[in-house]
């Protein structure tokens, strides 16, 4: 018997990449490792290791945007750039009432279907 109602609901994830040859990590992934020149194969990902991005991070800067683009029906959204403990940085949504540069936050990944088209993965910093 097959039960089509049973399927895995995969939690949304955003991936970082580590070059197996020299151990340098990236987000987003480059085609060629900046440090050792190793090439990445986007299909097989051979010789590169992926890892889930998220967790503790520090807010480097932020803004509250009042003129949002097509698809967003909110009054405003807050955005920021954070630095993770491994040194990688990312841009995403800031969902705290009073953002402040230097604030310690936690990054998680959510799926957004605000814009037309396929849903996309976004960082949420809380």
């Amino acid at each position, binding site marked *: 018997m097959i039960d089509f109602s049973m399927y895995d609901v995969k939690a949304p994830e955003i991936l970082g990449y580590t070059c197996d040859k020299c151990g340098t990590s990236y*987000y987003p992934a480059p085609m060629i490792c900046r440090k050792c020149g190793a090439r990445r194969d986007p299909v097989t990902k051979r010789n590169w290791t992926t890892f889930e991005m998220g967790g503790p991070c520090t807010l480097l800067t932020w803004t509250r945007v009042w003129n949002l683009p097509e698809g967003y029906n909110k009054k405003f959204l807050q955005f920021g*750039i954070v630095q993770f403990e491994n040194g990688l940085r990312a*841009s995403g949504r800031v969902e705290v009432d009073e953002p402040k540069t230097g604030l310690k936050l936690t990054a998680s990944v959510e799926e957004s279907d605000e814009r037309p088209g396929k849903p996309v993965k976004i960082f949420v910093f809380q």
Partner: protein
Amino acid sequence: MAPRVGIVGIGHTRFGNSSEYDLADVLAYAATDALLDAGFLEHRKEIDQVFVANMASGLFCHQSAVASSMVSRLDMEPVPAELVENGPASGASAVKLGTMAILSGMADVVLVVGGEIMRKVSGWNATDIVSTMLDTETEYNMGLTLPGFGGMFTRMYMEKYGLTERDLALLAVKNHDNGAKNKYAHIQATCTVEAIADGPEADVVNNYIAEPLRMYSTCPVSDGAAALLLVNMDSPKAKLFAKKAVRIAGVASATDTHCVHNRADPLQLNAVRIAGEKAYKMAGLKPSDINFAELHDAFSILELAISEEVGFFERGKSFLAARKGETAITGRMPINTSGGLKSKGHPVGGTGVSQVVELVRQLRGEAEEGRQVKDPKYGMSVNFGGFGNNVVAVICAKD
């Protein structure tokens, strides 16, 4: 020895709302003005190459092949024509490629036209279209916009150097003063620091767009086009033109990381600095030789940051110079004499060409009364693509 490249014709539509018109018509009108200015309209089929700069006609107007369309509108077939796209720096990229075509020996006369019709779509939609120049997965998908990056950059600069929102308002006042006198400007109106910063209604008049950036620190969405006729000044053809050439002394571009978060110091605009250094080297000049500049102030903070990267002011000190009036028309380094993107407007694909038109107008002494710099010899423009990931600098000289 490489030939000298000069500008012998300029054209410019008034920036603003041209959304009822066809992009090819707007481009062709500016081109016709440039050909008339050069006295070369009847000879237009002798032009060796046309470059049309445009960022996103496919998205704004559902229209492609605009270079072919414009050439046909001007009855210029079979002159070769190609489109140049480099985001909001498309215009200066086309100037660079036109210069390269002449320097390579493949062309003696090149027509460069840049323009955009952005207002056929809603502001909501235009904000989305402009945002497509960001990195898709790491920036655009998050919902980020160019004003969003402008806001984050401004906050970092404020926290590091002590810039205030009032300082940004002073730049808006200066640029609106200049733009109000520019017949091509989108917003030909002055504003006061009382109205947009100091007064009781300032929060309403000058509302936040992307904190701490306010409306008067953000450029409008504009339609329009500008055009230049370039010539090999050492070719026999150089004698055919009505006006003395303004020489392109230096032109250069550079790139930086597409993702802003991957810059070691996000406050450093490396592509601006490197493009500027290369342009100075080509021209054999240094920052102190430049008499005035057109800098890409899509957000007022960029006027400050760019002016520091190209060496006009020390890092973190440009707003102190602006407070003292040093960047006003009568100051030691007038910046954005046209009104800049803030007041003149920013039809994205046309801005880089428009900036060079302003350099030529100033160097010819043809700017309107009250905004003409006194006897300038060298002018510089910086056209900023993406959020600083692809930048072009141009230096023009009056010989």
